[in-house]
């Protein structure tokens, strides 16, 4: 292994609030219940705008009306990924028992990951440009489609006056955002960070590219069975939309206000493959370094990790390489799951959503099942929970994420 992690004093950030908006459910509790109790994926609808593509389906959030929830005036200034972020942020802040009207706003930061920002609107407006000319292009394109749109929308909605920023490292963006928040709290730059990821990419342009790349499942006849992490018949990921945000606090700040602490973010590690634009390092050396750095940062022994919420995208190469690394670093004892068959692969939001689910797994000492894992790949050398949720006695857990471009990240979380 190359590289040594920067090792400042140990620091554990308190997780005092979580907010989730996913295809599995609106709200943290609804999503948690769905991922633990489901024996099958939620409905994964065919999308008319994708009708002629090899993959024409996508995990979609239904029954959510952002204009009603946020108000027409506010909602019109946000692309959908930003709307989802604000809805999740409001839930997380309320869950933390924080009142934005009285907090020290200058000490509140926002860090939100997204891979593609407002790509669907970009896609739509590009069609407008081609078909109707430049004079019909919306002036909102430039300010709303930027990747930092979610961070600025959340900061505006909450009145958070500390630093706010986007993190964009493809599919590890949400995890890197939480790791960045951990570092900001450690340095004392702020007392509270609202951090995680948000994504909504129902874009014909993007899905066409993903199809050309052969990265997505083409199981058009059975979309609910298409995302099947660690299954021998997996054939690619299935895109989903969603947002997952955490409220992280300096532990003394949480203590001083008597906040209930759900769990601790004890360590963070990140490392690059420096290998390929799309493929992970064949030996998984990047995610291995990230994971070892996170363990060292947390001061947690690999033997004490009882649960992993894996990246588990349902692509042939990711699942095999990631599982091999998990076995190599952690051994065979952790209860591993991928919750993507319930949420879809939400790209830049995935790390935020799955870290929130890892927090809940630690709290409940319960590991959600990997839905659609009917025939475990015999090459996968780890204990993947399937069929039904499995209880455990673990006190520490890991969240791993890998992103296009070789961006690997890992978090170590512990029980409060």
């Amino acid at each position, binding site marked *: 292994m190359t590289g040594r992690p920067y090792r400042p004093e140990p620091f554990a950030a308190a997780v005092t609030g979580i907010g989730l908006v996913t295809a599995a459910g609106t709200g943290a509790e609804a999503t948690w219940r769905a991922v633990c109790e489901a024996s099958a994926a939620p409905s994964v609808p065919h999308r008319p705008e994708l009708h002629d593509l090899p993959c024409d389906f996508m995990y979609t959030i239904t029954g959510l009306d952002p204009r009603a929830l946020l108000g*027409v*005036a*506010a909602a*019109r200034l946000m692309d959908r990924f930003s709307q989802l972020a604000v809805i999740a942020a409001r839930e997380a802040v309320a869950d933390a028992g924080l009142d934005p009207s009285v907090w020290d706003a200058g000490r509140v930061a926002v860090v939100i990951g997204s891979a593609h920002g407002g790509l669907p609107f970009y896609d739509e407006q590009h069609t407008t440009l081609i078909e109707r000319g430049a*004079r*019909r292009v*919306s*002036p*909102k394109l430039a300010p709303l489609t930027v990747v930092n749109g979610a961070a600025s929308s959340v900061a505006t909605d909450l009145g958070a006056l500390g630093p706010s920023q986007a993190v964009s490292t493809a599919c590890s963006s949400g995890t890197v955002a939480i790791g960045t928040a951990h570092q900001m709290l450690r340095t004392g730059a702020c007392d509270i960070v609202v951090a995680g990821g948000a994504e909504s990419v129902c874009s014909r342009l993007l899905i066409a590219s993903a199809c050309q790349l052969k990265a997505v499942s083409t199981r058009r006849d059975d979309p609910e069975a298409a995302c099947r992490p660690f299954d021998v018949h997996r054939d690619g990921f299935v895109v989903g939309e969603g947002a997952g945000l955490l409220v992280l606090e300096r532990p003394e700040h949480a203590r001083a206000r008597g906040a209930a602490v759900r769990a601790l973010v004890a360590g963070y590690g990140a490392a690059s493959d420096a290998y390929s634009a799309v493929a992970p390092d064949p030996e998984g050396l990047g995610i291995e370094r990230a994971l070892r750095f996170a363990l060292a940062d947390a001061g947690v022994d690999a033997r004490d990790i009882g649960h992993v919420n894996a990246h588990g995208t349902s692509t042939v190469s990711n699942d095999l390489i990631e599982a091999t690394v998990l076995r190599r670093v952690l051994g065979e004892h952790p209860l591993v799951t991928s919750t993507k068959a319930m949420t879809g692969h939400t790209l830049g939001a995935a790390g935020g959503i799955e870290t929130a689910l890892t927090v809940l797994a630690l709290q409940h000492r319960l590991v959600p099942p990997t839905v659609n894992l009917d025939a475990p790949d015999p090459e996968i050398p780890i204990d993947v929970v399937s069929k039904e949720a499995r209880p455990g006695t673990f006190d520490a857990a890991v969240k791993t994420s890998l992103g296009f471009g070789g961006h690997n990240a890992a978090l170590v979380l512990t029980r409060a």
Partner: protein
Amino acid sequence: MSTAEEINTLLVANFGTDPLAIRPEVSLRHLRLDSLALEELRLLIEDRMGVDLDDVQLTSRDTVGQLVDAVHRKAAA
């Protein structure tokens, strides 16, 4: 539908403007229409009413009445 009614409808539906606040003497700034909103409104009016407002100067200091008059003149031209 009159020009004023068309603009009222667009403001309420797209900007969440309180219909009771939309009066001829009220400034667009008072309705919380900033420069971005004004350019968005310009496109919406053009699409809905089939007029070209490209050479119409719009600022937040203008009133609802001035906007209606400007659009009305273009529509009648």
